[in-house]
């Protein structure tokens, strides 16, 4: 693992060689298998990949929210230089919430159904030395901040009384209440309408700017990446296969999988044929040796099914795991870096 991926020392958060496996009766699921990346202060870092590629488990591992049969096998998660994986589990709560907060993927299941929203916000306001009235005021303010209408009334309600978008907002409010330095956002808009998604994403952007947070944004929607992220890592089968800045990703991706993703995107008008990746995502329980993408890869050769490719640097801050980076030279993504695409608005 080239150290450049994780520029040691200068970052708010550095994840290195993180491995989280699930030990099932019949197999070991390598959900996160040697993930390394870093997050600078004020940065929005994207984590993309298809379903099951290990995005959520990576985030959970950062907060050490992995329950049996899952276990963090190795690696380090350095937050401000402190390796969180070495902190006694009992002390993790010092980092959770107030330092690193997380928005869960499913607002439906991540909010406790039997506790009022207010109490759930209060929980994040604990240890801040606030009186109940102050907490109340703060909670209302937070809900208003995230755009929940008539927050004084809705604070008394339960999660099920909220619509999907409102739930997501409530969850953001709960997480933000603790004023984290880093926000881990796990597909915060997947379940939502475009209009609501638009609102939530823009909310996150504005909050981030106001509160000076860093954000790790997990998504499988490249549109969100384009709109939100400074840098991106593409995950495939538990590993990061490409990591670069957003513009490069869209303009000159250097991994066959990323290229395939671009080709799969319907982006133009009717008539053009899509160029999807063939085949199905691999099963993390029975990964063959070699590159897990090989069976679906246009460029694959026999070596790909035999040895696992190392991460190689292909440009400044641009790394890719592929035996045949050279073959990809000249392939371009969906935007032409030459000229700025025309905005639609």
């Amino acid at each position, binding site marked *: 693992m080239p150290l450049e991926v994780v520029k040691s020392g200068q970052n708010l958060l550095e994840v290195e060689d993180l491995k989280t496996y699930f030990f099932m009766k019949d197999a070991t699921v390598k959900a996160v298998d040697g993930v390394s990346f870093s997050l600078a202060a004020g940065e929005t870092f994207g984590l993309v990949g298809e379903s099951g590629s290990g995005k959520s488990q990576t985030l*959970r591992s950062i*907060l050490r*929210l992995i*329950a049996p049969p899952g276990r963090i096998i190795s690696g380090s998660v350095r937050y401000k230089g402190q390796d969180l994986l070495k902190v006694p589990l*009992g002390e*993790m*709560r*010092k*980092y*959770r*919430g*107030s330092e690193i*907060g*997380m928005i*869960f*993927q*499913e607002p439906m*299941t*991540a*909010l*406790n*159904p*039997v*506790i009022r929203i207010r109490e759930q916000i209060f*929980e*994040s306001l*604990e*240890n801040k030395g606030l009186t109940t009235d102050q907490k109340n005021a703060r909670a209302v303010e937070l809900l208003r901040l995230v755009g929940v209408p008539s927050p004084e009334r809705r604070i008394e309600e*339960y999660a*099920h*009384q909220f619509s999907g978008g409102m739930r997501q907002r409530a*969850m953001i409010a*709960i*997480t933000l209440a*603790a004023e984290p330095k880093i926000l881990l956002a796990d597909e915060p808009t997947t379940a939502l309408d475009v209009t609501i998604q638009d609102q939530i994403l823009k909310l996150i952007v504005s909050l981030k700017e106001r509160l000076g947070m860093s954000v790790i944004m997990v998504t499988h929607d490249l549109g969100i990446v384009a709109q939100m992220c400074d840098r991106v890592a593409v995950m495939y089968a538990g590993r990061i296969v490409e990591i670069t800045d957003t513009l490069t990703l869209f303009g000159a991706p250097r991994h066959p999988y990323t290229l395939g993703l671009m080709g799969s995107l319907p982006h133009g008008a009717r008539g053009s044929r899509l160029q999807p990746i063939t085949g199905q995502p691999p099963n993390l329980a029975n990964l063959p040796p070699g590159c897990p993408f090989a069976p679906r890869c246009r460029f694959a050769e026999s070596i790909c099914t035999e040895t696992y490719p190392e991460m190689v640097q292909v440009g400044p801050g641009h790394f890719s795991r592929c035996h045949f980076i050279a073959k990809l030279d000249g392939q371009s993504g969906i935007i032409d870096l030459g000229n700025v695409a025309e905005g639609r608005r």
Partner: protein
Amino acid sequence: MKQLNYIVGRLLQIIPVLFFVTVLIFMMIHLIPGDPAETILGDKATVEQLTILRHQMGLDRPLVEQYLLFLKNLGTLNLGDSFIYHVPVTDLLANRVPVTIALTIMSTIFGALIAFPMGYFAAFNKDRAFDQGVRVWTLIALTMPGFWIALLLMLLFGLKLHWFPVGGLGEGLFGKFYSLILPAFTQALGLSALWTRNLRNNVVDVLRMDYVDFAKSKGLRDRVVIVRHVLRNALISTVTLMAMSFTRMLGGSVITETVFALPGVGKLMVDSIFARDYGIIQAITFIFALLVMVMNLATDISYSFLDPRVKLE
């Protein structure tokens, strides 16, 4: 308002059900061979004597008329007379209903006292020795007939250790409570096994829920996470199950009351069926049905309080 709406709706539903329950039981018991006149007069009675008594008791009237009379009495909250004891059924039940209800409540409390810690610790020690031990225990407790458990408890705690009386209802409030301990325990044992398993599985399920992790991700203390987020959610369905066990306990009281010589309704019901004491049977059925339905209603309402997601519709 929503609640009130719901309650009114449900109460309205109870009426036809109660009506059918009473019709059913009325038909059933009146169609069984044998009648109270025979029970009262015994083997030595002549046909003539029987005829006289039947007439006095109104048993020679058409069934429909008898039923209407029963309904009419019900309307005035008069549950009729016991044919055998010659006293108003309400008098008989006044002493007995509290015994059965006390027994049921105590059984519930004991059951909860057994089930909650067991289920909880089993879940937190999932698949470890304690969990397996609890599993074995629940399997056995579920399969032991109540009267057999009762016998063992009486032998051990009554006869050998002299801790508790061997059956009978004590005197005074404390005496009564004291004498209900073993019977309640008997009833609690089998049910608590059911509840333990339910709670254990619930806790295991809840522990997997995202909201528990979300709570942890806020940096909450473990105790808070467990009490507020895990237990509360896990208990919802266990509490419902406990409420649903109510009917079963009423039924179980038949046997418990017999074995422990308790003057409750269950035993009275069985005796009355055998004695064809129509008055009592009808009254108890009616009360049981009412109790069960009110209990079900209360369960549903309390369920909606415990779990705000449940809409009362």
